[in-house]
């Protein structure tokens, strides 16, 4: 990718950016608050939630403007961006209103709704709501790492995240990257003693050499040693914060190893 610096206008202010980088990144860097529910740094942008949409134009477009998802719009010189124009706000409100009908009890969505002045949905709430907002972060992280253990099933409104055939997924290594990165903590897992259960699959844990405390699953450890050149002592850490960090970093690890495999 070229590293050319370009200048764009965001809400009237001149901003420097790198040509081709995603607009949302630039907006975040500038401290502009644009909601984004399906964006995650470890995976490629997705364009599913649509709340990150902004209005763009260019001087040469003769007054014509377009609405784009900032999470995957590549920045180019001369871009003029409105992140809170009337059209943007109206669209964002409708989308949040729609999400509130699907996820009425989900704190993340409730908070976003409150930020946009929506108390309750004006649509018909779904009969049996859950906390999955279908952002696809879990499946994309799992795919990016190369496990492909879970995916979306069913089309349209009946879409869900599930392992193949709803059974314990063969290729799942129990890394928890899906669960720990789920923005609504919808994916449940249990760690009890030396066993971990996620997606109905049970895993035996590798234990910390010194303390005997469980660290990661045997499958995951074997995978990392065999395919990612991770030294075995990497798995000695066992506390919660380290695990979350590991999970988040897996995307980046996967990205460079993918480059290696090419």
């Amino acid at each position, binding site marked *: 990718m070229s590293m050319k610096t370009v200048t764009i206008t965001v809400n009237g202010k001149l901003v420097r950016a790198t040509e081709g980088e995603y607009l949302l990144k630039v907006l975040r860097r500038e401290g502009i608050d644009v909601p984004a529910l399906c964006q995650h740094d470890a995976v490629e942008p997705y364009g599913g939630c649509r709340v990150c949409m902004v209005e763009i134009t260019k001087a040469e477009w003769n007054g014509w403007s377009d609405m784009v998802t900032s999470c995957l719009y590549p920045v180019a010189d001369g871009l003029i961006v409105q992140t809170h124009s009337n059209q943007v706000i109206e669209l964002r409100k409708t989308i949040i209103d729609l999400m509130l*009908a699907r996820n009425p009890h989900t704190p993340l969505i409730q908070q976003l709704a409150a930020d946009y002045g929506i108390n309750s949905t004006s649509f018909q709430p779904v009969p049996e709501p859950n906390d999955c907002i279908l952002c696809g972060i879990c499946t994309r992280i799992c795919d990016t790492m190369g496990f492909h253990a879970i995916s979306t099933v069913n089309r349209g409104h009946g879409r869900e995240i599930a392992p193949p055939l709803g059974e314990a997924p063969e290729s799942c290594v129990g890394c928890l990257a899906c669960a720990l990165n789920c923005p609504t903590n919808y994916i449940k897992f249990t760690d009890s003693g030396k066993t971990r259960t996620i997606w109905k699959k049970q895993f035996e844990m590798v234990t910390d050499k010194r303390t005997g405390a469980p660290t990661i699953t045997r499958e995951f450890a074997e995978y990392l040693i065999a395919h990612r050149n991770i030294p075995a002592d990497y798995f000695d850490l066992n506390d919660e914060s380290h695990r979350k960090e590991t999970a988040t970093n897996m995307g980046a690890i996967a990205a460079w190893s993918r480059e290696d495999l090419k």
Partner: protein
Amino acid sequence: MCIIANPQELKKRHVELAAKQERFPKKVIVCCGTGCLANGARAIVDAFHAHLAEKNIKDFTVEAVKETGCHGFCEQGPLVVIEPQGTFYTRVKPKDVAAIVDKTIANGEILSPLLYKDPVTEHRIERYHDVNFFAHQSRIALRNLGKIAANDIREYIAVEGYQALAKVLTTMTPDTVIDEIIKSGLRGRGGGGFPAGKKWRTCKSVQSDIHYVICNGDEGDPGAFMDRSIMEGDPHSVLEGMMICAFAIGAKQGYIYVRDEYPLAVVHLQKAIDECEANGLLGDNILGTDFSFRIRINRGAGAFVCGESSALMRSVAGEVGEPRAKYIRSVVKGLHDQPTVLNNVETFANVPIIMLKGADWFTSIGCKNNSGTKAFSLVGKVRNTGLIEVAMGTTLRTIIYEIGGGILENRPFKAVQTGGPSGGCLPESMLDLPVDFDSLTKNGSMMGSGGMIVMDDKTCMVDVARYFLSFLVSESCGKCVPCREGLYQLHELTIKICNGEGTEEDLVRMEKLSESIIVGSLCGLGKSGPNPFLSTIRYFRDEYLAHIREKRCPAGVCKSLITYTVLEDKCTGCVACITACAYNAITGEKKKPHFIHQDKCEKCGACVAVCKFDAIEVK
């Protein structure tokens, strides 16, 4: 068969094959498209083989029997045409074949009961081209359908097949090919109507070692079968169109994405590809030039959304067929991130004949900015249904009343739905609208891939909107919120109105929601998804208001809002309705007026269908 070494040799073969066709003008054309096969065409072919072999009639050998692709008139099938006089027989049964051989073929006698009866004049029509259904059509993309045997490359070569390719390879450059396509004004027939030449030019201009050509044969619109018929009945014209495109943009590999429900199309396309490879028309150094190109078939996953370009390309690449949001167009970064031209089957089928006859010929057909023709599948409440092709700019009236023969049972016309499930409905006042990309879009509908559903006065337009939205809700892939949740809610609101529970605020909310779905959705499905609602509210607002204000369904369709009652003065007490009612909702004594118990009536309509005295009122 052997390699055709150069264009001169191809020309020679054409001349020979065409001369042979001329020497033997007598033919028995048996339609072997999917529709006629389903109605028993195979047995008819066998019967002709048997009888012709037995009777030994001069010039009518077994070889005179031709199994062609779909004529578009499947509802009248199986079809048989006797050439050269063009005698046209419909709904032929195997037992009719002996008489056709003995009388028509041997003695030129016409078998009147097998002739098509014009539904308006009730006259029997003898010749193919005198049938109104065919007489008002202009066939370009469907030019060979019903004329040549679908699975024999010699038939295609006899009708100047691959001469356009030869012309392109020997006398033109990629740029002059693209110039010609641009000049012809050919627009994509798969939906959007984007100028094909412009697409090719952009793709060619992208610097890359690899370019791809993809043919979209997904045809997801329910009831549409234009692309299927072309792929089945004239596969070589699609291949030739793709080859010309490949030459123009510098592609070496092409793919045809065929929907999984089209097995015969796959068989015929594969046969055509194999024949081309055997003849040196696909592979390395085609016709002895340095142009090399190969084509592979991909079977579609069967979802409507797989016809969308980014979903289709992912599917071809072996990924999940789901649309991907991209701000870099696929002509620049398409399949495997390489510059790719994706065109529809019908678009490609137009290409060879444009190259042969020239852009000026093509622009002389059709109307301004909409040159050429368009194929439609005409269905619904018209007398003649089927696959048709008309010059762009032909009015809806001509299509519905001339080709379609008018509305069934002489009922009033109410609306025509064009553009597939996410198209729109046009009212009677639009009957004189010329059918072209721009006119349809301007008036709230669209061309889509060419579905055309005619509706009569018994159709409720709110119910129509509900029906198409339910299709789109179930076909939405569910990736993005505006389409997944928005269309779902829009559909729920139409159900509410059909149930008589809607309010006028709901209409306002629906219009606003539609706007957000259009602006916010990721792919074309969501972006056009609200059309069924928007076009019906635009032209049939009164009908929505009748449901909302008066709790009344004027067309008598929405079950919650109608009641079935016996008109005492008309009822003869024949008891037919009692037997018909599966819910025991009707009581009455013989020869006395009957009575419908509203608490038991499920509004199935069975009683109305059997009452010979129009004694049951639906209101």
